[in-house]
Each structure stands twice: as C-alpha cells, then as structure tokens.
C-alpha cells in the first residue's frame, strides 16, 4: 500500500442513516432502562439509593423505567417490522440469520487465536461475533418486554395464569436484564471501544461507513461481493 492511499483512506458505505438514528435511540432507551432498572435491582447499594432519590423517589423511577420500556419496545417492534418488510417485499438478504458457517467460523477463529490456523475465518456482512451478540440481545429484549409487561399488570395476568407467574417473571426479568447488561458492557463495549483493532472507537455505526482496509480484513466475503455488484444502500437493514 503506497503512502497516498494510506492517508486518503477509501470508505465503504455500510449503514443507511436510519440505522444510525436507530442505534442512538436504542442507546438512549437502553441506558435509561439500565440505570432505572439496576438501581431497583441492587437497591441496597448507596449509589442506587442516591440515584433513586435524585430521580424523585422509587415511584418516579418505576414510572420512568416503564415508559422507557414502552418506548424501547416500540423501537424494537419498528426494527422487527422494518426487517420483515425489507426481507419479504424488498428481497433484502437475511444476512443476520445464523447459519452453520457461523459455528464453524467460531471454531476456526478460536483455533486461530490459539495459533492452530494461519488466518482468521473469512466473514460475510456480519461476523459470527456480531450475529451471536445480536441474537442474544434480541431474545433478551423480547424476554424483558414480556416479563416487564407481566410485572406491570400482575392483577390482569393472574386472572389467566397462576400466581407464581409473577415472582417467576420477576426473577426472569431481573436476571435476563443482568445478562443483557453484561453482554453489552463486556462484549459490545470491548468490540466497539477497547478492541485493539478499533481503539479508541469503532465509528462505523455513527458514520455509517467502514474503511476499505477493515472491510477487507473483517468482512472479506462481503467486500468481494460488493466489488462484483454495486451495493444497494437500502438493503442494509441490520
């Protein structure tokens, strides 16, 4: 690579601006839900109590949490609708769906890390890491939505379901929240900020673009595909 190309990097468009806005919306509501939710779950901690008092008491925190939950749910429903409409009517490629290749890629990459393979696996539009993360968060969010609804309307729910549903939903909601929070705070934050390849920040989701160099390294199959056929920007649903 000569000096000229190194300074003027070439960028590949990866995300539609709507995806950038969607990511910000998710960040905002997710952060609100984490703060108001975890402070309720770990209510004995001084910092939780301080936070709850600052927000105007436990009742206010619960109301904020519920409405943030409703808005987040709407965002998630919008996300699903867009994906379904895109895939069914606009013939988008369901690139986020986990295939057999993702499992073999995972094994391949671990072998690569351990020095048993020469090069990492060649990935498509989304890497196996991104796919597993996406679906873990996605199922987590669906569970949170369902159990959150149960906890909001316990009287209505117990008209149809046994009383035990409520405490079960409570432990499920609390634990699944922790799982989602841990995945985001450990895995997602590492990959987006602290990973040596992207440090100090992977700007891809904020600009919608990725450098050709990284595209070639991380999404080589997708890059080759794009080189063959010019990309359709609207197809980048996920």
């Amino acid at each position, binding site marked *: 690579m000569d000096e000229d190309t190194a300074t003027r990097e070439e960028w590949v468009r990866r995300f539609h601006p709507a995806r950038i806005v969607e990511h910000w919306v998710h960040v905002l509501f997710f952060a609100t839900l984490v703060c108001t939710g975890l402070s*309720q779950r770990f*209510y004995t901690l001084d910092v939780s*109590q301080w936070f*709850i*008092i600052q927000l*105007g*008491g*436990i*009742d206010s925190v619960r109301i904020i949490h519920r409405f943030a939950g409703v808005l987040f749910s709407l965002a998630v429903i919008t996300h699903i609708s867009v994906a379904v409409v895109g895939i069914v009517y606009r013939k988008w490629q369901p690139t986020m769906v986990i295939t057999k290749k993702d499992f073999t890629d995972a094994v391949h990459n*671990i072998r*690569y*890390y*351990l*020095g048993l393979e020469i090069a990492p696996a060649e990935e498509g539009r989304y890497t196996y890491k991104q796919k597993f993360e996406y679906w873990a968060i996605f199922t987590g969010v669906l569970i949170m939505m369902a159990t959150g609804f149960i906890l909001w309307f*316990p*009287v209505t729910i*117990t*008209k149809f*379901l*046994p*009383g*035990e*549903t*409520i*405490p*079960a939903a*409570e*432990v*499920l909601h609390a*634990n*699944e929240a*922790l*799982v989602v929070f*841990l*995945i985001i705070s*450990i*895995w997602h934050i*590492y990959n987006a900020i602290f*990973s*040596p*390849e992207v440090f100090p920040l992977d700007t891809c989701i904020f600009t919608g673009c990725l450098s050709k160099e990284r595209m070639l390294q991380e999404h080589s199959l997708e890059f080759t595909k794009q080189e063959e056929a010019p990309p359709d920007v609207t197809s980048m649903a996920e």
Partner: protein
Amino acid sequence: MCKRREAVHTGVSVEEEKRRVSFALFLLTACLLFAGVASAGIGDLSVEAQACLSCHARSGTRVTFQSNEFIEVYVDPDAFKASVHHALLCSQCHPDFAEGQHPRRLFRSKLQYQIKAALVCTRCHSNEQITTKGIHAALLSEARKGTAMICTNCHGSHSIRRVTETLKFTSEEEYCMKCHGHVMQVTFRNGETLSATVNISVLQTSVHSKLSCSDCHYGFSSEEHPKRNFGTMRDYTLALSEICRRCHFDKYTKTLESIHYTMLSQGDMQAPVCIDCHGAHAISHIGRERALIARRCQKCHGDIYAVYAKSVHGSALFDENNQDVPVCTDCHTAHKIENPLSQSFQEQIPDMCGNCHANEAIVGKYGLSRAVLDSYLSDFHGITLKFYRMQKDKLNRPARPMAVCTDCHGTHNIMSTMEPNATINIKANLVKRCRKCHANASENFPDSWLSHYEPSITRTPLVFLVTLVFKIFIPFLVVGLVLQIMLHIWRFVANR
C-alpha cells in the same frame, strides 16, 4: 410523740402515794394562805394553779395503773404558762379536783385514763367546731366505729399549742402520716369523694420510697397546707399528673406527641394521664410482670384486650406466662403512643415485628424462621416501604400505604401460622387484603407472594428453576466472554 406528764392524781396503790396525797392537801391550804410567797416561776398563774403546782411542779411523783403502767404527774410550770390554756384553773380541766378535794380514782390502764381525760376537751371544743378540719372529721368517724379519739395524743395536755408546734417528727412522712394515716377523704365540688388516706407500707415499697411527701405534693409542708378547690375528681387527677414531669421530663415530652395527649388537648378529659396508668403512691417498676402492662391498657381498651388475649401472643402471655411475647407497649410504646392508623406508624410495623421475629434468640425457641423480615423487605412491598421511609424527609411523601405484616397476619388477633386451618384462613384473608389496593385481584393473585418461603423445587418450581438456570448461566457467560476477549488480545499481541 412527746407526752406531757399528767398532773392528775389518780387511784394509787402504793403506801407512799397515800402519804403524798395528805401532804398535798395540807400544802394546798398553806398555799392559799401564803399565795404571795409562792415560788417566782409560778407567780403569774391562778392561785389554784399555784397551789396545785406546789406539788405537781416537782418531778418524780408517779401514778401507777392496774396494768402496772404509770405516768408521772409532773407539770412543767413554764410550759403551762406558755400554753393557750394558762389562764384556766386546774379544776376547769380536772373537774373532779378542787380546793380540798383530791379524790382517788382507779383506772385499768393508761389508755383508759387517757380516754377519760380527753373527754374533758369536748366540754369546750364541740364536735361541730372541730370537724371543720378533715383530720378531726376522720378521727371522729373512727371514734364512732370504736377507736377512741385522744386529743392529747396530738395536742399535748398542759402545754397545748398548735399540733405542729407540739409534735416532733423525724421525717416528713411521719408528719404527714399523723393525719393521712387515718381514714379521711377529700370532697370535690361536684360531690365526688376521694380517699386521702395513704397506706405508708405501700408507699415504702414503691419506687418512690426515698422521696418525701412534699417532693411530689409541692406547696405542702409542716407550715403550709393550702386548701384547694377542685370541681371534679378528674380535674384533681389531671392537675396532680402535672407533678410527674418535674422529674420525668423525658417521658413527659414523649407523651406530648402521643395520641392520648392529643385527645386531652382536644378536650377529652378522660384521656389517660400519668396517674391513670402508673397509679399514685403504689407506683412500682413497670415491666416486671408483663401481663400487668396489658391489664393497664385493658382499663380503657377492653375490647382490644379481649381480642389480644385470644391471639397467639396474648394466650401465651396469660395462659403460659410467656415473657417473650409482645404486650401493648412493645408495639405502641409506653409514652409516645402514636396514632396506630397513621401512615408513619404503619411504616414502622415491620421493625416492630422484626424486633422479635428477626431475632434468633427469641424466635429460635419456637421453631420460627428468622428470615420472615428479610423475605418481606426484599419483596416488592418491602422495598417500596424502605424507599418511602427514606424519602420521608427528602421528598413529598407518597400517601400510598404499603402492605405490612399486620395486613396479612392481623394485628391484635394474630394467629399461629402453624395451626391446622391457618393456611386456609390466611389465604382468604390475603385475597381480601390484596383487593383493598389491587381492585379485582383474582384468587390466584396472592400466590404471587411466596409467603416468606425461599423458592424451592416443590413449592415454587418455576421460580426455583429460573433462578437456578441463571445462577449457572451468568458466570458461564461472563467467563466465556472474558476468555474470548483475552484470546483475541493475545493473538493481536502475538501477531505484532
């Protein structure tokens, strides 16, 4: 009591006494003839008195009664001169005796003599005159029942002065008990009467045994006995209860916040004050016998007492004399008795129950779980309550009541949860209670509360399994992710 020697010559049995009588008669005549030369100390007295004193001013002369008791017939001339009766003739009080007349009389005992001698007083001081003083009225009523009234016991004889000057007391109690040891009563304007008799032995076994009367009854002393005018007995009780705060100010300030004081200040004069619960002279250490505390409250709260007595706590207290169970004051406190319907009182209930039910030393004895408090506090209602209490001073307090222990278990009627029908009764009670806040709650709804039990595979399998799965999954997830990250970094470093 200081007894003045009687100068009266009574029936004598000794030969020497006879001789002295003859000698006295002789001297009496002699003195009448030579009045002017009588000794200077008796010079201001009547001629008759001077004549009598020529013998009776000498000490050492005795009169002995049939019971072998004796009195000295000595009269102190100076004391007699200082008395209110110094102008009287001896014969005015000793009517059997006169010039040339000194009969010999026979008395069985000293008491019989004293009774007879005291009768003389009533010749001038009629019963009507003396009954204006409560103590005389009391003594007269005792006299009608057969206990003789002996004026000289209090007032002395020849040295008659005010009682307070005559009698010598070693303590204030002794002084006061001189009158208040007798049956006596105070009458209020509305006609109610109150016994003013004090049982000294009761007082001495009370917690206040070391205090003097005027420590409480200030304004009263050997000099002063103000006459006060109370409309009713209740007015008197209310006024006297004010005394207690002079020493027990801490308790007094607590009562100012109590529902009883609020009622009193709103005009309910029957609201209890110190004396109503603690009594007056018989004040004992409260709490030695816990059943007594409950009985004190029973005086006014009889209906609640009856319910309490049947409860798991009350029956253990009264039937088994169990001292571990709570009595009224353990929850309601003794002095700062709050309105139990207030929200702030409700919010303290988990603490009240927790005082014993979270204490292994107490509940362990009865096979009860200590976890009941924590399981409540870590549930929705408990957490909310905790925050409501925390928010109390910082934010507008939510007016919403939270379910506490008593909402499910009852208050005064708490039953054992180990009884055969308990589970059914509690569940029925629960649905009713839930519906107070959660309108339209179904029969299933109370099951959403795990009844203080830790989730278990048999009791609540769903909750137990979900908890278990995450207990395994979360550490697995964290370790897996961290391992991946570390491998990734390691590869990156190795490639460079």
